[in-house]
């Protein structure tokens, strides 16, 4: 039986900490879990192998209350607008998914494709880890596998705030930034570009497609998960040592 935790808003550190706490819960025999969440305040997450100083305008983020956090998954820097996206995580025993990492990306991403299709948006999976519409990216995901547990998390873009997105990213020259925004507009898209629906409807569509064919129940974090998450947020994800290790 899958446990489904529906959209909650947390800060960046708690969001990453909750994902890790759920991994520990699943490792210790807890139910596989699907979680939908949002970010408040808006934040930038960077991939495990990225350098904060190379990727993020930390000064701009600090001045504007935008958190910066390193993920435990690889992949690129993502701007998580507090109103502009839905993030998901799928956390389950590794053996519930194909051994091939790329095949497991494909499997989980197909749930997103199905969710978008149910609101009238035709998208497709583009290996390695993207979902695209006419070559424009609408969703990106990242995966890690540790201690027999698979964690895949990713975002589905609901609306775009490209100006803030590219101010958060480290671009020294305004001209380059303008070019990047124009170029990004041709490479990135969002649900709002195709249909005018409330974000709750997108959430419900994803919930239905992720749960399709599964035995599942709505659930919440256990007290232990919450305690683990609070500990990890404070002692790992908020620390300079973690966020600036590369």
């Amino acid at each position, binding site marked *: 039986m899958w446990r489904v935790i529906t959209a909650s808003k947390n800060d960046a550190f708690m969001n990453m900490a909750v994902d890790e706490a759920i991994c520990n819960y699943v490792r210790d025999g807890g139910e596989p879990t699907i979680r939908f969440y949002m970010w408040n305040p808006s934040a930038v997450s960077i991939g495990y192998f990225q350098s904060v100083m190379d990727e993020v305008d930390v000064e701009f983020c600090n001045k504007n209350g935008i958190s910066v956090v390193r993920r435990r998954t690889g992949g690129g820097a993502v701007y998580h607008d507090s109103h502009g996206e839905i993030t998901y995580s799928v956390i389950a025993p590794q053996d519930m998914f194909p051994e091939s990492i*790329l095949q497991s990306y494909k499997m989980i991403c197909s749930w997103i494709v199905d969710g978008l299709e149910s609101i009238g948006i035709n998208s497709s999976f583009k290996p390695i880890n993207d979902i695209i519409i006419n070559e424009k990216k609408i969703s990106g995901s990242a995966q890690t596998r540790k201690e027999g547990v698979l964690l895949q998390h990713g975002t589905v873009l609901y609306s775009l705030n490209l100006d803030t997105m590219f101010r958060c990213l480290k671009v020294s020259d305004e001209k380059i930034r303008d070019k990047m925004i124009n170029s990004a507009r041709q490479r990135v898209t969002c649900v709002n570009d195709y249909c005018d629906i409330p974000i709750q409807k997108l959430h419900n569509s994803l919930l239905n497609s992720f749960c399709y064919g599964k035995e599942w129940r709505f659930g919440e974090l256990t007290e232990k998960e919450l305690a683990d998450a609070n500990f990890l947020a404070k002692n790992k994800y908020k620390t300079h040592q973690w966020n600036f290790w590369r």
Partner: protein
Amino acid sequence: MKTVERKIKNGKLVRISVKFNGDRISDLKITGDFFMHPEESIIEFEQIFMGKKVEGLRSKIMKELVKRKIKIVCIGFDYNDVCSMVEEAWRCGE
């Protein structure tokens, strides 16, 4: 440190910062939006390059990976790309 950045074809962006001592690699940091499983093996992966001569680097790295029986899954790049970038940094001069 010399930095070389490359978007790997059908892969990810990889950036290396490398330092040489004579014709040997004395420091290497690999960053980017790639994936590596398990993630923590990036440290050992970088370590393999330390002290190696640039000449014949690829075969030395491959031998070392086999010798150490390291099971690393790289997605979006591979060790050949890193070797090629190190060679580029070497050609450009530190």
